[in-house]
């Protein structure tokens, strides 16, 4: 049945593209899979498993000085800086700056506690990937993959501590 294989012209393909550009807060599967490859805590996790454990994944663009996370807020979203840099503030005091390819907010998600710091965009077009991990699936048959995620998270935390130590030494 040929009518099941509709072919679109170049002009029509452009219409599809224009429609898709206007929806950068949506969670298209193709985008999700592409993004997942860039987030280090998902190293070695197959795409079909990621689709099951990730929730509310969004790509958000922030201007300089826009608040990304508020200190003391209840929120278990994890953020990944795709492009740009952010400032980390505790009680309005600058603690550190973080840049490209860093995970933020993972502590609140893991410990189910309030945000321990505020995060503010430090560049004019900071692009953040925001997502939640469905930790309830840890006890399902997916448990094995969670052990990989925990291992990757530990690596990322260690990297962050090293980075902060370096910043203290430099001061």
């Amino acid at each position, binding site marked *: *049945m040929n*009518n*099941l*294989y*509709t072919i*679109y012209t170049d002009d*029509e*393909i452009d*219409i*599809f*593209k224009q*429609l*898709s550009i*206007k*929806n950068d*807060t*949506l*969670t*298209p*599967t*193709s*985008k*999700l899979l592409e993004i997942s490859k860039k987030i280090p805590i998902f190293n070695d996790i197959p795409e079909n498993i990621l*689709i099951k454990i990730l929730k509310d994944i969004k790509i958000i663009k922030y201007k300089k000085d826009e608040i990304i996370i508020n200190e003391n807020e209840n929120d278990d979203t994890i953020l990944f800086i795709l492009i740009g840099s952010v400032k980390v503030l505790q009680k309005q005091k600058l603690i550190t700056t973080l840049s490209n390819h860093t995970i933020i907010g993972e502590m609140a998600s893991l410990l189910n506690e309030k945000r321990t710091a505020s995060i503010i965009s430090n560049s004019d077009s900071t692009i953040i990937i925001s997502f939640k991990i469905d930790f309830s699936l840890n006890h399902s048959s997916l448990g094995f993959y969670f052990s990989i995620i925990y291992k990757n998270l530990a690596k990322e935390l260690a990297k962050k501590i090293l980075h902060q130590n370096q910043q203290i030494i430099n001061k």
Partner: protein
Amino acid sequence: MLQTIYQEDIYKFIESYFKEINDISEFHLNFFIENKIPTIDINLLILEKFIFQAFKFLKTNLEFKFSNFLHKLYNDIHNLLQFIEQFNKKSQIEINIFENDFLPLLPKYQLLKEKLEDKYRMLHHTDLNISSLEVQIKFFNPKNKEDTNELKHLRGRLVDAIHYNAKSKEDISKITITLNNLKNDLKDTFIEEFHKSKISYLSKYNLVLNTKLFYFNKKMWEEINQNQKTLSYFNNLGLKNINLKIYIENYLKHIDFSKSKNSNKYSQIENILKAIDE
């Protein structure tokens, strides 16, 4: 053990059964990938009736002229929906597919079936033969030695036929047991594998449909919002910046959820509306 021998047959059958649906999904997914058009993983299929209802309503009642692109996309989605509807009907009862489509393809099953049919044919033939011999013997009145010999001969043939008949019944029972064993051993494995594959192939197909519905919906409201006639129509209903969310929310306002049989479906719709994030 038997499942292992036939595992490859099961996989081959499933692959060929879902070939068409897979080809269609691959064709459309490749189109999205090649042209860098994002696929959309939101279950818009549940809203399909609302989307198409709005399209038809505006076209018919307000004589709204949608673009050629939108009409083409509408036909595309409509054809894909029709195909999947028929496919779902056909593949709904898995046990029927197993018995009517898969089993006859197995040479061992075919051989046993043919043997069984032969045995039944022979049984029917000997049954008729026995009845005929019994009638002949009952009404046979021997008048001389030759007739007595003939009667003896008929009785001998009757004994042979009864013996053959009993043997056929025994064979039928044995073949039937072998056939049933073959069926029972493969049934669960087949149904489990078939079901798993069905979910996987359908989810791919639904991704295509959801993506096309997403772009259709997006374009449709864009065109509607650029037209004064439709805008004033919706403004008169108190609906501004009309989109699918507002359109459905307006529809849901008029439903008494306590009385509706579909209240579960409507709560699902509300959840999906939240996900669309227009």
